[in-house]
């Protein structure tokens, strides 16, 4: 169907977006690469000259590097698991007939509207605070000692906070997918005597696989970049230092832009490894 004419028209129409993104990718990327091979120390007057791959070796041999990679993967994985499992269940629940469906939907998706800084401040101060937080009150009510969330369960706390933020997104996408599920197919299965669990695993879940892929893909990109939630709550202490946060510490706390840029290059590599890995596992769902 596509003629030569429409092909070239298509190229022209794609050009602005592709060009802009190319610039937006190349300019920072080239700058990162440039700074990563230089000793750039703002507090010592800026550029101190070419240092080869020293920043790269220093960044990767730092004792903080591998734990940061591990923390990053745990947080991304944790958030994905929680938001997808709960997201599927919530989506199924919201698809059921009920009174006030619209209001419930709003309640469920509301966390997505809250800016990350506010989310982190609210959770840290009003829920996880060991003296005045809601959880502390709850624990004391049941006669237990309040948990000091941000030190004793620091990574879990971050996962909970980020999941709360991203669960609505997963739920929304999964809900639209579930709504398109052919109800006749379900009814037929029901007639055949398939129990609800079997219906879920053999009909609903395969139908959702594409939606789940999308959720994984998009959330991974956003969760890899999580920053405010850590900055506000633990400041990277207690084992919550992700790769992004480590780069922040190098660039802004240690004021070593060269070292931080080398870290940025590693972060791009890690993100791409994760992306390729995801594509291998779930990529076929994107084809049709």
């Amino acid at each position, binding site marked *: 169907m596509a003629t030569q004419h429409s092909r070239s028209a298509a190229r022209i129409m794609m050009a602005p977006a592709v060009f802009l993104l190319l610039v937006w990718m190349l300019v920072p990327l080239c700058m990162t690469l440039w700074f990563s091979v230089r000793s750039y120390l*703002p*507090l010592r007057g800026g550029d101190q000259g070419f240092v080869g791959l020293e920043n790269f070796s220093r960044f990767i041999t730092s004792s903080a590097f591998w734990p940061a990679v591990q923390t990053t993967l745990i947080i991304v994985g944790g958030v994905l698991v929680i938001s997808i499992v709960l997201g599927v269940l919530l989506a199924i629940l919201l698809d059921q007939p009920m009174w006030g469906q619209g209001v419930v939907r709003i309640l469920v998706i509301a966390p997505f509207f809250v800016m990350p800084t506010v989310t982190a401040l609210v959770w840290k101060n009003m829920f996880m605070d060991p003296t005045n937080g809601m959880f502390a009150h709850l624990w004391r009510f049941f006669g237990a000692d309040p948990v000091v969330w941000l030190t004793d369960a620091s990574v879990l706390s971050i996962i909970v906070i980020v999941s709360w933020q991203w669960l609505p997104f997963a739920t929304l996408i999964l809900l639209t997918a579930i709504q398109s599920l052919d109800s006749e197919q379900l009814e037929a299965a029901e007639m055949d005597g398939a129990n609800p669990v079997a219906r879920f695993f053999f009909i609903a879940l395969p139908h959702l696989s594409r939606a789940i892929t999308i959720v994984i893909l998009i959330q991974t990109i956003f969760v890899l970049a999580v920053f405010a939630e850590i*900055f506000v709550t633990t400041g990277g202490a207690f084992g919550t230092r992700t790769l992004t946060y480590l780069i922040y510490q190098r660039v802004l*706390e240690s004021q070593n832009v060269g070292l931080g840029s080398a870290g940025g290059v590693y972060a791009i590599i890690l993100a791409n490894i994760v992306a390729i890995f995801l594509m291998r596992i779930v990529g076929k769902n994107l084809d049709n």
Partner: protein
Amino acid sequence: MTKTFGALLGATALCAIASSAAADAHATTITIATVNNGDMIRMQGYTDVFTEETGIAVEWVTLEENVLRQRVTTDITTNGGQFDIMTIGMYETPIWGANGWLVPLDGLSEEYNVDDILPAMRGGLSHDGTLYAAPFYGESSMVMYRTDLMEAAGLEMPAAPTWEFIREAAAAMTNRDADINGICLRGKPGWGEGGAFITAMSNSFGARWFDMDWNAQFDTQPWLDTLTFYNDMMQESGPAGFATNGFNENLSLFQQGLCGMWIDATVAASFVTNPNDSTVADSVGFALAPDNGLGRRSNWLWAWALAIPAGTQQQDAALQFIEWATSTSYIDLVAENEGWANVPPGARTSLYENPNYIEVPFAQMTLDSILSADPTNPTVDPVPYVGIQFAAIPEFAGIATEVSQEFSAFYAGQQTVEEALANAQAITNEAMEAAGYR
């Protein structure tokens, strides 16, 4: 719905263009970056007075301390020119001044009386004898304690306590059933939070950050003693989750009556004795920060000060504002409206000679604490750096934040004291090597 939405956005876009054009027509406006501390917020409230007097309009960029540091450091090192006045501390001022990034404050007027600034503050905000920032308020640290709880424990606070006494008193005042913690101290990671406290404390234990050749000293006995003592005392008598408590968290606990003692910034005295915010306002006593008989106390020295970045276009207006905000007449203005206890403390000698102010319960102890702090000679053994709770080198903030994270992980029980110190040693030496000191 989409149509209305789009129309709305289009309308606001037009407003935006119109309003930005209108803003240019304004007279002199200066932009001030500041921290969201109580005294600064109060100053913002009096901006109108300044504008009325001088015709200079003021725009405030008020940020939380960590974000503020990040913003002003980025701007000053790149000469971004976003701010005409920056609120910075005793750590940044000498470093930035030495780099030529700040306008020297040598054009201050006669009536401003620069010699009235407390010598310790003036020294800490100067480089090579030139003043680069004017102190808005200055502080040391001291013990704040509940007189009622101390009495109930059958103890009496000496004017200059030792760490042993503090620990015993803390244990005696602790009542876990009533949620009373004998002592509240900073444990929060961050060089300006728990890092500042433990560094100042370590001075009284004979510890130091570096030897004269810039080798990290975390493998020495005094550091082990400091951390062990701190952690043992806090586990016995401190609040739950003290490893995440900083100044604000402890202030809030103390105001709620949940702390027997609190060793922190002297400016906190006006907050804990203010009956509007504090439930324990009428039963707070003060004492010097504790020592260990080694000749150094554990109090620090700090000032929040106003400085003019070299890139500003509004140097004169900025200087005018600084003169106004750090003058004695500003102090009088606040005293008149909100009482002497609420004036910005610790910056001027004349304030402590004022008979009205010296009646304020914490005034004398604040002055004594400030006078007993010596940033040029902070430790028992000699050190190559200046600064009590910090070392005034550009790399310190980054290193000390990571080191304090290791310490906080120890307080939280995630690693042993030996691991924490070994990590601190490695981090510090690694960074000092990268910076070319070793």
